[in-house]
């Protein structure tokens, strides 16, 4: 039993809930019918508050309570979710998020955090007490009270009977925290602990829960809220709730159903104010009479009593049914999604990798054995291995939509800060990429997006003057190309100003006076360290730290980045990344006495070099009219010895670049696992990893994008 683990789960789930809350908040402004989103954000805060209560995280409970109340008002149409309110709730969301983060360091709330929370709460108060113009005619109890009307008459209390299951403590819960939490929902008028079942002597198990209690709570909370408090222990414990002003029979029913002595329980109820002593006496006598009547026990189910006595109002029943339905739906949905720890997934992929290699070895040995049945058997195994491989690798893939969606908030906040209206369009959100890449993409994308908002998209007046729409558009697009993934960030802003760039480059001595540069070359200048043509350094970008770091990040992912811009019209930044999967289909080639592997999905075709050679001097081949550059592995890797008379060329493609790789021998397709070469070889250009062949030898995997780029560079 690990309480820390439970708390970690709470933190993770709280963050997820906060994420959902933020999404809803951002979506709500554009929606005609925001009911769904409002519910979603309410539920998120409500759940966080409840869970925090279980862990005794009072500060979080206290803060989220106010937010929840405000959202509840919105939910019940007593309050309209206006722009300013959305912004305020977003701030509250941020504060909650940092409170959850703070939990990692310990439970205590810092004085700064407390002050921040209190400030936000005081800004929320006007929304709670009724705000002129923001409220719909149907007022609320809270609103009337705030206007100074006398307090409502005695409301009576809920009677809560709890008998906790024996495993409650082992499961990380504590009845104590429920009491504390209930105390935040109202006033505990009376509490009687029930410790009758605590055994004597050696039977006492210190980790088993023997505690129960009967308590009376004066509260405005509804039945659902009270039930929710005990949600996590409901299944193992007996929790009964009796609403205020219930009929005596109900309490008596409770007494009968509980294992302890009737009289004792009765006295507890009397002490709690639920019933009077006289009523109790009468009922107990009645009960006894009933019980003996005709030797049969007559009694009524508490539930029946409640409904008959109309203690449970119809909307509550409807809500209960609704909740049940939602719960069932969620269960069905939960079955579709399983959370897996990242390191377990990595381990699985590793093992599948080993399996692939072992399968290759078996295949080689089977071929050598010339045993027909053995060959067939290994073929079957290898097919299965391939399927497992594809499935396992698929597990590592995540949709880029998750990353893209995070930008909605940023675009909103930043554009407000800049005083611009910018619309974010997302395409290709379902495009999948390896999870390790997604994490590393966040920072560079962030910077590019900020650049677009800050420098790319012009202020409204400028846009109007140029005849553009008031609202700027930012597009995030992701798609697959052969063997790689393409991510584009486009804006319809002012584009890069070539003149300015050249001027700045000249100033920094990056280019010589009078040098002529192509458009691409001019744009590439912005990747130089310290480069920024921003006139005023804004808060976000323009500190000149940006684009060179972005390029470096993309380099580390073995990708490339290019800029497409047109002055006055806009800019598109294209990032291309190779799909680095741990297990690849490779094409094996030989040069010298070593083997090399080319990722199969970049291979277009294989030919003899001879017939297609266009120019040895310029390293060009002519592929049915298309002239392509080539490079010779022997030359690039300085392999000693003479090439064979008959050389081969493998035509490869990366993005829209094509080239030929000239080798000595072609071996064929095979599946293999990429083994990273380690830090020592990080600097080697042209090698992207290594692998182990079925024979046990090590083969080096070629980094085709790098090779193609150098081939193209040579030609130029």
């Amino acid at each position: 039993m690990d309480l820390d683990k439970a708390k970690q789960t709470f933190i993770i789930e709280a963050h997820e809930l906060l994420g959902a809350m933020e999404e809803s908040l951002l979506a709500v402004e554009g929606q005609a019918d925001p009911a769904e989103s409002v519910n979603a954000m309410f539920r998120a805060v409500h759940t966080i508050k409840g869970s925090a209560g279980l862990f005794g995280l009072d500060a979080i409970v206290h803060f989220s309570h106010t937010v929840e109340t405000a959202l509840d008002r919105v939910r019940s149409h007593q309050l309209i979710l206006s722009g300013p309110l959305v912004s305020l709730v977003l701030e509250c969301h941020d504060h909650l998020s940092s409170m959850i983060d703070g939990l990692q360091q310990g439970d205590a709330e810092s004085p700064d955090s407390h002050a921040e929370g209190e400030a936000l709460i005081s800004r929320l108060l006007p929304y709670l007490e009724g705000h002129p113009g923001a409220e719909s005619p149907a007022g609320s109890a809270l609103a009337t009270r705030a206007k100074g009307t006398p307090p409502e008459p005695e409301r009576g209390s809920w009677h809560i009977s709890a008998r906790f299951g024996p495993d409650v403590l082992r499961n990380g819960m504590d009845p104590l925290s429920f009491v504390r939490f209930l105390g935040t929902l109202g006033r505990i008028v009376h509490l009687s602990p029930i410790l009758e079942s605590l055994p004597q002597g050696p039977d006492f198990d210190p980790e088993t829960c023997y505690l129960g209690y009967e308590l009376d709570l004066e509260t405005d909370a509804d039945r659902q809220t009270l039930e929710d408090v005990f949600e996590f222990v409901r299944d193992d414990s007996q929790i009964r709730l009796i609403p205020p002003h219930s009929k005596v029979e109900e309490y008596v029913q409770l007494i009968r159903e509980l294992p302890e002595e009737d009289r004792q329980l009765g006295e507890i109820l009397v002490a709690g104010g639920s019933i009077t002593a006289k009523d109790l006496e009468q009922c107990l006598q009645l009960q006894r009479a009933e019980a003996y009547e005709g030797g049969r026990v007559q009694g009524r189910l508490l539930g029946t009593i409640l409904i008959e006595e109309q203690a449970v109002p119809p909307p509550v029943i409807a809500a209960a049914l609704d909740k049940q339905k939602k719960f069932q739906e969620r269960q069905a949905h939960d079955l579709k999604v399983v959370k897996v720890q990242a390191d377990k997934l990595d381990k699985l992929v590793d093992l599948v990798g080993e399996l692939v290699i072992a399968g290759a070895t078996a295949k080689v040995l089977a071929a050598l054995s010339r045993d027909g049945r053995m060959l067939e058997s290994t073929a079957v195994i290898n097919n299965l291995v391939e399927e497992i491989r594809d499935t396992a690798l698929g597990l590592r893939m995540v949709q880029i939509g998750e990353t893209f969606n995070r930008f909605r908030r940023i675009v909103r906040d930043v554009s407000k800060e800049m005083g611009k209206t910018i619309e974010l369009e997302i395409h290709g959100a379902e495009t999948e990429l390896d999870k390790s890449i997604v994490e590393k993409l966040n920072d560079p994308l962030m910077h590019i997006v900020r650049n677009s908002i800050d420098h790319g998209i012009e202020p409204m007046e400028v846009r109007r003057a140029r005849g553009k729409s008031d609202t700027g558009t930012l597009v995030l697009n992701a798609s697959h190309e052969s063997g790689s993934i393409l991510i584009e960030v486009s804006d319809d802003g002012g584009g890069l100003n070539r003149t300015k760039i050249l001027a700045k480059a000249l100033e920094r001595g990056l280019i010589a006076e009078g040098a002529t540069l192509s458009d691409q070359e001019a744009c590439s200048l912005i990747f130089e360290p310290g480069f920024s043509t921003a006139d005023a350094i804004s808060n976000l970008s323009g500190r000149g730290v940006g684009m060179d770091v972005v390029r470096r990040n993309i380099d580390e992912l073995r990708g490339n980045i290019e800029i497409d811009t047109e002055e006055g019209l806009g800019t598109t930044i294209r990032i291309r990344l190779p799909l680095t999967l741990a297990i690849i289909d490779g094409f094996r080639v030989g040069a010298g006495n070593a083997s090399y592997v080319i990722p199969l999905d970049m291979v277009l075709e294989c030919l003899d070099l001879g017939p297609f050679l266009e120019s040895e001097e310029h390293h060009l081949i002519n592929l049915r009219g298309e002239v392509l550059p080539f490079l010779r592995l022997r030359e690039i890797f300085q392999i000693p010895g003479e090439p064979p008379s008959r050389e081969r060329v493998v035509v490869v493609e990366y993005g829209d670049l094509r080239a030929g790789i000239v080798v000595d021998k072609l071996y064929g397709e095979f599946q293999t696992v990429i083994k990273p070469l380690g830090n020592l070889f990080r600097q080697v250009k042209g090698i992207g990893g290594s692998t182990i062949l079925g024979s046990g030898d090590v083969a080096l995997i070629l980094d085709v994008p790098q090779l193609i780029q150098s081939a193209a560079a040579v030609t130029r």
Partner: protein
Amino acid sequence: MVELMKLNKRQAQAMTTVQAEQRGQYLAFSLGGETFAMDIRSVKEVIQFTALTEVPLMPTFIRGVINLRGAVVPVIDLSIRFGRTFTEVTRRTCIVILEVGSSEETCVLGIMVDNVSEVLDIGERDIEPAPAFGSNLRSEFIAGVGKVNGKFVILLDVNRVLSVEEMASLTAETPAGK
């Protein structure tokens, strides 16, 4: 591949802790006729020299990589690293597999040596600091000089000799890195 010696790291550590403060264990090997030794705690295993795959455009001290039960391990020619000659492969040539690095980042590497002789038991009192001159080895590579049976053995500071940082930067200076 035949494993000559496989030392369980824990065993090695246990052995050294038993003799705690006073004595340390060092693996002695010869390189170009000279005897060196290194702290046994860095040594994972010793294997016979096996087929090496060369990695193109690497500085010469990186001889290539080997397949160690499924892991690809780089192999370094210690002799070249020390500025001496290429290590010729004989039937006694061995590869010592080491784990180097800090507590945050460790790295598995192999070094080629002419042969491996024995495990020496050297007390702290018998270790003298590296000489200021006289050795043609870079001083920071030497952890100390141990006296064993009247003879002197140079104790190598494995983490410095095999500093991945330093070696990676040397790699950057070769044509491969440009």
